[in-house]
């Protein structure tokens, strides 16, 4: 249900409305599991390879499989070309993505092995890490990795004093009043937070409200993810 509000978002959305979401599973035939997930014009592709032998040997965990995520944006995904290769931002987001996914993975069955997740952003309009995490969760499920549940990710923004769901680039660059606060959050279907970050300026009360908005939004995203997985079976 979308709330009516006086606040005008640049693309006319209601404050708790996400952009159009598309999700497709099984987009990379070579991968063990793969998916595409988009929030409006932000498009992420994730591919899973594994469990497979882990090199170097000293990085192996004798108790359980290791999750290894790599997130990166392709050079032309943004207006100003990004030099190819990893940078500090993509390195951090890679780790954040691991932390967002690992709590629901059951990797005890694969000691010494590695599960590699590769995420590439094909087109960026903010909320790329959230799109990437959503795609990765689908790819892991399709790869047959045992999971306690999926996870679903969304960005909550505060534009001046107004909370909004699913931040676009124009909103990320909001300058009026208190500017923009960006809060990407990942949750399990039963409401457990596996990832949360924030930068901007916000009161404790509004932050609690933001988390509540994320809970509602991730519930909807979860339904879309489930549907994408089911559809992938009919279309083999």
């Amino acid at each position, binding site marked *: 249900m979308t709330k009516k509000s006086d606040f005008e978002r640049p693309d006319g959305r209601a404050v708790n409305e996400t952009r159009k979401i598309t999700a497709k599973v099984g987009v990379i035939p070579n991968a*063990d*599991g793969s998916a595409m997930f988009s929030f409006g014009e932000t498009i992420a592709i994730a591919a899973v390879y*594994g*469990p*497979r*032998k*882990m090199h170097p040997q000293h990085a192996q965990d004798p108790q359980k499989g290791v999750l290894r995520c790599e997130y990166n944006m392709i050079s032309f995904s943004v207006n100003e070309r990004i030099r190819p290769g990893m940078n500090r931002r993509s390195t951090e987001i890679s780790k954040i993505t691991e932390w967002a996914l690992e709590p*629901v993975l*059951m990797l005890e069955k*694969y000691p*010494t*092995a590695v599960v590699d997740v590769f995420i590439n952003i094909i087109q960026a309009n903010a909320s790329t890490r959230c799109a990437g995490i959503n795609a990765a969760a689908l790819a892991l*499920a*399709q*790869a*047959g*990795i*045992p*999971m*306690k*549940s*999926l996870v679903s990710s969304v960005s909550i923004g505060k534009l001046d004093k107004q909370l909004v769901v699913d931040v676009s680039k124009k909103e990320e660059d909001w300058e009026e009043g208190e500017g923009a606060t960006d809060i990407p959050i990942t949750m*399990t*279907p039963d409401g457990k937070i596996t990832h949360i970050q924030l930068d901007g300026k916000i009161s404790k009360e509004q932050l609690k409200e933001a988390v509540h908005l994320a809970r509602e939004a991730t519930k909807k995203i979860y339904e879309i*993810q*489930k549907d994408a*997985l*089911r559809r992938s*079976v*009919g279309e*083999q």
Partner: protein
Amino acid sequence: MTERKVIIPGEVIVHGKDYLPGEWTEKRNDEIVSLIFGVVEETNKLIRVIPISGPYQPRRGNVVIGEVVNVLSNGWFIEIGTPESAFLSLSEVPGYVNKGELAEVLDTGSMVVAKIANINKRGIDLTIRAAGLGQIEDGIIMNVNSNKVPRVIGKEGSMINLIKENTKCDITVGQNGVIWISGETTEAELFAKKAVEFIIENFFKEGLTEEMERWFNKEKEE
């Protein structure tokens, strides 16, 4: 053809105290929850999920097909698609092999049909001491996801026998998802490969054996 119920990891399959959690499920309070992306199967209140995809789970007694990746002084390392290494010891091949002659018996790149004799902390132990096991000399090797192998074989071999009869090929299906097809002609081998690909594409449907029979009749008319 109807379709079996597809389930998502974390999704509730069924409520009820009577139900028992089988493979790839977990009981949370009175609910049976799936732990994997798969298809639900129920037998007398025992609920299990058959994964749609995922890595091969090696089991003792499985027939597997693999490639020799390393020749040592006392055996061979065989790649069967698992993170753990699979080892074929000198003592597990029929006949006597002189130390130093191992590469002549099986060189790197050779394909073998083997059986898993044992699985322990060190890895997987293979054997080729039994009928139907040994080096593969000709034909085609196909790779499918190991979870689809039961569909390719069918109940009591019904599906695989259907393919063999209709294509006149010898087919050995490794539990690790590697399939060996050997026929009289290249046409026969390609036909068998196509048949297996059809099964993989339609693995989730009920009544697949009848569908396969119809497919063969149609293909043969062409």
